């Protein structure tokens, strides 16, 4: 069964079209990564899948139901989104932020319950920010902060998790830390994860399914090892590169051509 799919979806702002008549399905229980050059509309597509942006035409289907026609808090129990730029109000603590993830489960009558408490605890533990619970969000490092925001989306207890460039602005260590966390969530809890990622090599390593966007359309999609070729990267990104294998994971590894110093011949790997 498909978790999420889009049908003849066209997106844009005012009179510009950004995504033109795309249909695709997001495989359930897998990690799907959207790639494409800057401004190709991959973030726009992700936002539309999270009903943050209404379609110009076509539809987004969540478990076969049109997302625009579902009650919005019902959507929020099935699908959570972490936007690209997040900004916690000054003074908000980690615990307060993560608790907001329970918003879709609350109502005037039904206030804070034990189930809410358990979900928040679980989210704090899964993202390893439990010890930071009383800290102010603004006092945390970039990596910690991103884990806190992910904890908030986990507290939402959704099967589907959408993330818009979750590793941007993070150093290499924290990028891996976040992606490992998402990988664990996928493996251990079978959550469907969809994200936009800029680093192609990390995308190849972590994705079960890659969707390459080009010229407002899906250029290619599939397993990274089946679709990532020198030709695809040239056509999608306009970049010449050599595709080899990641020495650690065996997944495709793109090494771009370009200028810069060349030590080849002078010095071998030691």
């Amino acid at each position, binding site marked *: 069964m498909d978790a999420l799919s889009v049908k003849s979806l066209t997106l844009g702002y005012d009179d510009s079209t950004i995504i033109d008549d795309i249909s695709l399905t997001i495989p359930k229980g897998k990690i799907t990564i959207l790639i494409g050059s800057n401004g190709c509309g991959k973030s726009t597509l992700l936002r539309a899948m999270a009903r*943050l942006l209404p379609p110009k035409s076509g539809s987004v289907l969540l478990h076969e139901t049109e997302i625009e026609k579902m*009650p*919005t808090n019902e959507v929020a129990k099935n699908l959570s989104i972490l936007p690209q730029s997040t900004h916690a109000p000054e003074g908000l603590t980690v615990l307060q932020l993560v608790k*907001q993830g329970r*918003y*879709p489960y609350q109502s005037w009558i039904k206030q804070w319950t034990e189930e809410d408490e358990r979900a928040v605890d679980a989210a704090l533990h899964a993202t390893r920010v439990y010890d930071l619970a009383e800290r102010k969000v603004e006092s945390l490092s970039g990596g910690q902060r991103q884990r806190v925001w992910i904890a908030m*989306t986990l507290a939402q207890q959704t099967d589907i998790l959408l993330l818009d460039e979750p590793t941007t602005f993070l150093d290499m260590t924290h990028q891996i830390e976040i992606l490992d966390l998402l990988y664990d969530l996928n493996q251990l809890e079978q959550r469907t994860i969809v994200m936009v990622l800029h680093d192609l090599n990390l995308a190849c390593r972590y994705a079960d399914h890659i969707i390459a966007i080009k010229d407002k359309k899906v250029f290619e999609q599939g397993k990274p090892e089946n679709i990532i070729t020198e030709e695809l990267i040239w056509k999608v990104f306009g970049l010449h590169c050599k595709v080899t294998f990641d020495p650690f994971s065996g997944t495709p590894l793109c090494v771009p051509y370009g200028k810069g110093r060349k030590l080849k011949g002078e010095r071998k790997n030691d």
Partner: protein
Amino acid sequence: MLKSNVTKLVGIFIGIILVLLLMWSSVIFGLTKITPQMVIDAFSNFNGSNEHIIIKDVRIPRALIAAAVGANLAIAGTIMQGLTNNPLASPSIFGVNAGASFFVVFGISTLGISSLATLSWFAFAGAALAAVLVYVLGSMGRDGMTPVKLTLAGAAMAALFSSFTQGILTMNERALDQVLFWLAGSVQGRDLQILISVLPYLIVGWIFATFIGKQMNILSMGEDVAKGLGQKTIIVKIFGAIIVVLLAGGSVAIAGPIGFIGIIIPHISRWLVGIDYKWVIPYSGLLGATLLLLADIGARYIIMPAEVPVGVMTALIGAPFFIYIARRGFDR
């Protein structure tokens, strides 16, 4: 400052007691000497004396009006700052008070309306028009609503409506006499009747305000996050706008445009209780009432026996504060 829910609750009680004490002081202090015994007698044993009439017809309405108007403007400012994510937002800076004033002056001078109930509708309409105009102007352009654009749009609307008001007054001198003291913002010499006639709308505003806090907490994490959590953000904004129009418009109808309460108080409340709007909103109400009662009592003593309009008092306190906030920048 106040961390636990218990201390915040205690703070609410202290605030209520403070407001009651100041209302009592507002009845006692002033040019005409009033003793506590006279106040009691004015109700239990009314003798028609000057003092008793002053207590019942002047001082008590004045205390009630100052408390209500101060609370209204502060709550309206809190909600505006929260919804627009703009530390400079307030009914006076964003032209809401000016819009309401212009409509009221227009109603009095050009249409010759004297019914208080009708005039309060003019105030609501003017407040709503200004709010919508500022929101639309401040949201135009590709990057949407930004704090700077919104503040500029607000300042422009405030200036525009004030000039319209002045235009009417220069053409119509009789109107000038009627509305001049009102235009400077004053809680003095107001009939209790006008408070009673807008009270139903104020109560609706207060009820909405007590329920919007939790929703504003969600919205303050950003529009996308709030929508992602399933909030219908547009509904929260509409309710917020209704509260602002009812409370700010109602206040202008009662007391004229009183500035600066709406900008100062939200900052003080947030400093006291943090960012949880469930607490910030009631604290703003109590602190707004406190500030306007204090300013109004002070206004009686500066140029005794005459009085300074209380709007001038709040401006004297508020202007330096405004500059302080503006200099600190838009980083929040």
